[in-house]
């Protein structure tokens, strides 16, 4: 659905992210930690932190919640094996949301038209991820590099977000 939904304006582009799967893992801290360890990490990322473990990216969006992004193969067996031993909730949400890669020198002004979140580097450094509000839509934003952000919203909000970003990117020129 997001394929056609791109923004391309001077100073700002939003390109749909294709492929991969998403899992929402919820459980108590020990379970989240155990999952991280099963993936070879020392511990689960702190709140709003992210970590890369092989083909999995862990985003700590809530105290008891990890969003795990994987390739098309899904979660490695070592994770599901571990989870079989502990109370948890694992729900695939690959299709619930759609994502974009955001770049451009007007990126900040564009996002700031939609979100009240302080996304300056000193408050929101590389690797930081959180849910917040974009206009009237829930969204998840993750700073993947100094100049690149990853944005996700629920699928049905995609046309709205794209239109809002497009309008905001135009405004940002003035």
């Amino acid at each position, binding site marked *: 659905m997001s394929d056609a939904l791109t923004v391309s304006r001077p100073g700002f582009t939003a390109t749909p992210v294709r492929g991969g799967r998403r899992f929402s893992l919820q459980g108590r801290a020990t379970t989240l930690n155990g999952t991280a360890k099963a993936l070879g990490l020392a511990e689960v990322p702190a*709140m*709003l932190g992210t970590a890369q473990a092989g083909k999995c990216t862990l985003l700590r*969006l*809530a*105290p008891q*919640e990890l969003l795990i992004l994987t390739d098309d193969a899904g979660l490695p067996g070592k994770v599901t094996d571990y989870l079989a031993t502990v109370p948890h909730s694992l729900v695939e949400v690959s299709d619930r949301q759609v994502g974009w890669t955001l770049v451009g020198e007007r990126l900040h002004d564009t996002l700031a038209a939609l979100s*009240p*979140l*302080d996304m300056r580097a000193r408050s929101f450094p590389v690797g930081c991820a*959180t*849910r*917040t*509000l974009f206009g009237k839509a*829930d969204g998840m934003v993750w700073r993947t590099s100094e100049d690149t952000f990853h944005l996700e919203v629920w699928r049905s909000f995609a046309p709205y977000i794209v239109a809002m970003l497009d309008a905001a990117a135009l405004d940002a020129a003035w």
Partner: protein
Amino acid sequence: MLLIRCPYCGDRAEVEFANAGEAHIDRPADPMSLSDEEWAQYLYMRDNPKGLIAERWRHAHGCNRFFNAIRDTRTDRFVTTYEIGQPRPEVTPEQAEEAAR
């Protein structure tokens, strides 16, 4: 627009949150044993103080956690926010004065 400190996510704008009413009102363990009067007290009667209030917020457009806050309703200044399940913290006179300012 208030700036609210989510105990998990830090300072965020009010629009990310939903107020969830008075804090520290525990659901009775056995509601059926309560009189109508007691049940109504639990369900409807609320502190509505002009001064310090203990209240709940939900970081609705964030980590989606409920948490508690102490705030002065005369100024809307927060004294502190804290996790659900923690007891209502003592407010020092200095904190109270600062919040009332």
